[in-house]
């Protein structure tokens, strides 16, 4: 489904808007969702509003507009209250707000850990390690300690190289 606002990007977020008791649901891309959930209404009622009235109106509108993760149904206010995401997609649905929260907790949003390949190919190294572990167990079981010592050394070397 395409974003109902820009009609270019894929819709991933549901924005629920309550206005005069009427509920309106919009399917949006994360970029438009961020823009619309924070922005003022497109048509200002009058130019004569005081800044105070304007701010009040803005906060009222923010309250009634809510980001919802379309994968798991978690709303942003639910996340803010419980501090728990509902699914991996929430991280991207809630966009820049997630970045701010992570920055606040960790002082960084940059992942510095080991890379994980999501294509689920068994790496040769790990396969070899498993084979060796099985061979080691067998050698110990058969009380072939010379062989066991050799395999243990090979395993150790493999693990050191694998780091």
């Amino acid at each position, binding site marked *: 489904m395409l974003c109902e606002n820009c009609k270019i990007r894929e819709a991933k977020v549901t924005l629920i808007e309550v206005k005069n008791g009427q509920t309106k649901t919009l399917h949006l891309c994360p970029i438009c969702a961020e823009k619309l959930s924070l922005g003022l209404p497109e048509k200002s009622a009058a130019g004569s509003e005081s800044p105070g009235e304007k701010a009040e109106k803005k906060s009222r509108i923010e309250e009634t507009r809510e980001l919802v993760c379309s994968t798991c149904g*978690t709303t942003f206010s639910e996340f803010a209250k419980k501090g728990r995401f509902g699914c991996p997609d929430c*991280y991207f649905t809630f966009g820049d707000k997630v970045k701010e929260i992570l920055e606040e907790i*960790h*002082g960084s949003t940059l992942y510095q850990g*080991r890379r*994980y390949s*999501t294509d689920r190919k068994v790496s040769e190294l790990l396969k070899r390690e498993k084979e060796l572990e099985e061979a080691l167990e067998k050698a110990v079981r058969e009380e072939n300690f010379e062989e066991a010592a050799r395999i243990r050394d090979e395993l150790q070397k493999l693990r050191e190289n694998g780091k």
Partner: protein
Amino acid sequence: MREMVERTPRWLSAEGKFPEMVISSRARVARNLEGFLFPGKLDGKLKKEVLKEVRKAALSLPEFKEALYFEISELSDLDRVFLAERHLISLDLLADGEGKGVIISRDETLSLMINEEDHIRLQAFAPGLNLEEVFEKVLRVEEKLGEMLNYAYREPYGFLTSCPTNTGTGLRLSVLLHLAGIVYSKQLEGLLRNLAKVKVSVRGLYGEGTNVEGNVFQISSLLSLGVSERETLESFRDVVEITLDFEKKSREILLENMKEALEDKIQRSLAILSSARLLSFKETAEYVSAVRLGIGIGKIFDIKVRTLNELLLFSQPAHLQKLFGKEMGPQERDEKRASYVRTKLKAE
């Protein structure tokens, strides 16, 4: 579970470095599976699917050969608390709910909780100060599991977890420290103030939201973004070292300024443990702490740290009830606890 009852888990064996001050070291990683909502939002049927998939992968590993496996919904309340007292499951996992499970290696140095806050919470334990060992072990098993399972891992954040405090590497290191010197010399506030600056958390015996008993504190690393796994290990090791230095200095100060009072406290505590007829867990933990300090400063020679670890372990309510093979109210427990402690010390 019956065979676990009389056994002391390896992580309480007092074999590692500084076993009197560092009771144990622990590393854990949090992982989730792609294609499933996090456990908090996942319905029971799909949770069981996650449970099945993770269990199958884990049990194929040599580290989990002949492992123990429990489904939480099938355990009695007493058994659940028993596992929590051994730190094998969290207080979060022990609450009722479908599709939760735990896999425990034979020697109890690895535990894998399924459908706790995240699909996977893998933990490695070691006695004494041995962060390198638990670090290597937890990541090795995590990596092997990751070959068989499909972890939720997405740029730019890395591993995605239910709580944003674990996002990134999902790694947390922790130690259980016995800091009687710092507590007795009234320097705890100073320590806490210093530790708050270096991004670690200080908690009670069973982690988040629990009380400190017997001057045992759980100190944990906090950051999982902006740092590599190894950087987490190195900086946490530094923090532990500084804390231990602080503890050693506090003990020196105590010995200099109030030697008699300290020795009196230690010997009195041992005497109470050896002859009391009623002991609460809190009291036991306090007296055990003083005796432990006595070993640390070379005033007590004929009691092993391992024995004190066992006293603490089996003095806990669920352990005591399992050990005596019956359900007991608090009063009866106090009586049996005192009897257990007396017998155990007499055998030393």
